[in-house]
């Protein structure tokens, strides 16, 4: 028996979107389990186990597709290496986040089934965004991710959590409306929702409908910028990050942002690249403002979660640089080099973010506070946590021999190669600013005595695993960046 979906054979769909299908099925399965199981069994982390297995299966399926290209429909849903590397990144992050949500006894935090399956759905949304080459699927993917995220942010039983979710929802929905409105203009001018065709038609429509095209693209750009929290579209981020359960904050900072970049690159480089040389300055300006504002505002925070939120805004600025350089490359930027730099930094950033939030999760649980004071004297309480946190922090600031330095180095190199010396200089300057506030925290952890009794803090095994994985990745990518950096340009990025 062959199942046929709207003229698409199941076999073809499986070939292109097997990981998404596995995760979606697992998500629905978990919904059923959640309804059927008694609370005691729920608490035993059954759903987390199912989700982990699904992620591993999906990961293996994705790995086996490398080097292949295929498309669903008239090329509206693509399978190429570009989509695959991002999908692997999303699944890896989700895996770490799920582990992080387990407590000392391997039990799921709060014993909420929806937590697990919404996380899976959010991951699927991110994956759809990476694969989409059609405005419709792109929008649907974006909304799957966003709507799941709104709920996830609001899952904590606290006033802050609901407030963060509401703020995220209001700004996120306005952004979605902007994206949709922009997309409607692009569709109207080109008569197609398919990205590659639209890009081609846009080339012809450019002269007669320039105003409406620009407006449409800008509205889309603004909507995407909200997702990746580019200044000045970042306002929701600190509040939503602070309100969310800490693992979800890590998910938003790492996976959601990476998905935004996947989409941004797909739309503005893959489809509409030819229209962008004139706009190089726009991107460069956004990157610069984001770097400066994110790092500047992080300095004055006393809540570590909020500080990391601002810092992740600053990191988005660094991530925009290779993109800006590529779109505005009058001197011929190297697409594969800069894409590799972007992806390298995304992966490095995801690892250190996951690690830092993992440490924060454990510390906040013990200290019942996310204030910087909770970190005071952490070295005496848990040398592992203090050491790991120090590594993640200096990696975010860009200390040599950590992945943060290697990533910034490649990004700055791309900027220098295309003549944006001042941008590289600004990266260095904001990095110095970052050192200022990160070192304050490191000093607090190592050189000051803890407040209250100096009992040692246990780290749950699953969280310790996340910390160690992130630590190994952060140092490994810093010592031998070549391992990853050399395999990336060899990929068949967009299936050319």
């Amino acid at each position, binding site marked *: 028996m062959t199942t046929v979906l709207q003229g698409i054979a199941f076999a073809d769909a499986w070939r292109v979107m097997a990981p998404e299908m596995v995760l979606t099925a697992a998500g629905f399965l978990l919904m059923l389990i959640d309804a059927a199981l008694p609370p005691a069994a729920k608490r035993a982390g059954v759903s987390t186990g199912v989700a982990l297995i699904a992620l591993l299966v999906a990961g293996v399926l994705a790995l086996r597709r490398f080097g292949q290209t295929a498309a669903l429909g008239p090329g509206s849903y693509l399978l190429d290496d570009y989509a695959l590397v991002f999908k692997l990144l999303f699944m890896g992050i989700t895996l770490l986040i799920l582990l992080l949500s387990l407590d000392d006894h391997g039990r799921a935090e709060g014993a909420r089934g929806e937590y697990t399956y919404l996380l899976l759905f959010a991951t699927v949304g991110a994956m759809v965004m990476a694969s989409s080459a059609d*405005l*419709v699927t792109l*929008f*649907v993917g974006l*909304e799957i991710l*966003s*709507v799941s995220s*709104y*709920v996830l942010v*609001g899952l904590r039983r*606290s*006033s*802050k959590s*609901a*407030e*963060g*979710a*509401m*703020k995220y*929802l*209001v700004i996120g*929905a*306005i952004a*979605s*409306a*902007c994206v*949709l*409105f922009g*997309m*409607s*203009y692009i*569709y*109207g*001018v*080109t*008569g*197609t*929702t398919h990205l590659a065709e639209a890009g081609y038609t846009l080339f012809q*429509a450019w002269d007669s409908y320039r105003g409406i095209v620009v407006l449409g693209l800008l509205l889309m750009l603004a909507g995407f910028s909200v997702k990746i929290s580019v200044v000045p579209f970042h306002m929701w981020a*600190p*509040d939503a990050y*602070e*309100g969310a359960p800490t693992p979800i904050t890590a998910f938003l900072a790492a996976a959601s942002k990476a998905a935004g970049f996947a989409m941004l690159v797909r739309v503005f480089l893959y489809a509409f690249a030819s229209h962008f040389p004139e706009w190089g300055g726009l991107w460069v300006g956004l990157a610069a403002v984001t770097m400066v504002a994110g790092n500047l505002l992080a300095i*004055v925070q006393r809540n570590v979660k*909020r500080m990391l939120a601002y810092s992740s805004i600053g990191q988005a600025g660094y991530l925009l640089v290779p993109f800006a350089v590529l779109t505005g490359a009058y001197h011929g930027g190297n697409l594969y080099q800069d894409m590799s730099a972007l992806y390298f930094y995304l992966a490095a950033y995801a690892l250190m973010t996951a690690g830092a939030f993992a440490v924060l999760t454990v510390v906040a649980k013990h200290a019942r506070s996310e204030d910087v004071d909770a970190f005071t004297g952490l070295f005496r309480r848990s040398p592992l946590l203090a050491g790991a946190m120090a590594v993640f922090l200096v990696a975010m600031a860009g200390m040599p021999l950590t992945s943060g330095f290697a990533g910034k180095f490649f990004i700055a190199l791309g900027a220098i190669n295309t003549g944006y010396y001042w941008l590289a200089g600004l990266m260095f300057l904001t990095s110095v600013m970052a050192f200022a506030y990160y070192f304050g925290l490191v000093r607090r952890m190592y050189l000051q005595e803890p407040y209250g009794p100096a009992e040692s803090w246990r780290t749950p095994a699953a969280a310790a695993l996340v910390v160690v994985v992130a630590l190994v990745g952060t140092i490994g990518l810093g010592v031998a960046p070549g391992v990853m950096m050399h395999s990336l340009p060899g990929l068949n990025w967009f299936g050319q």
Partner: protein
Amino acid sequence: MAPIGSFLALAAILFCIGLYGALTKRNIIIVLLSIELMLNAANLNLIAFSRLGVSANVAGQVFGLFSMTVAAAEVAVGLAILIALYRNRNSTDVRDMNLMKW
């Protein structure tokens, strides 16, 4: 048949009204409704283009269907969060959401 320009103008006006409402109304329910208005303005655009556009085709209507579904989901989640918020805060005023700032 009315020219496409008037449909587009109506959509733009609706979008702006929605945006204005979302940014000024005090009641969260009205804010959510205003956002609905923005999404529907976009839908109007899509439908207009799919009927009267430069190269009119059915894709716009399909897109419109998808976006209506998405909008429904968004509002449902919005109301759910609003209920959670109301339980905590006993208020549906946007201005009361000020625990986190700076």
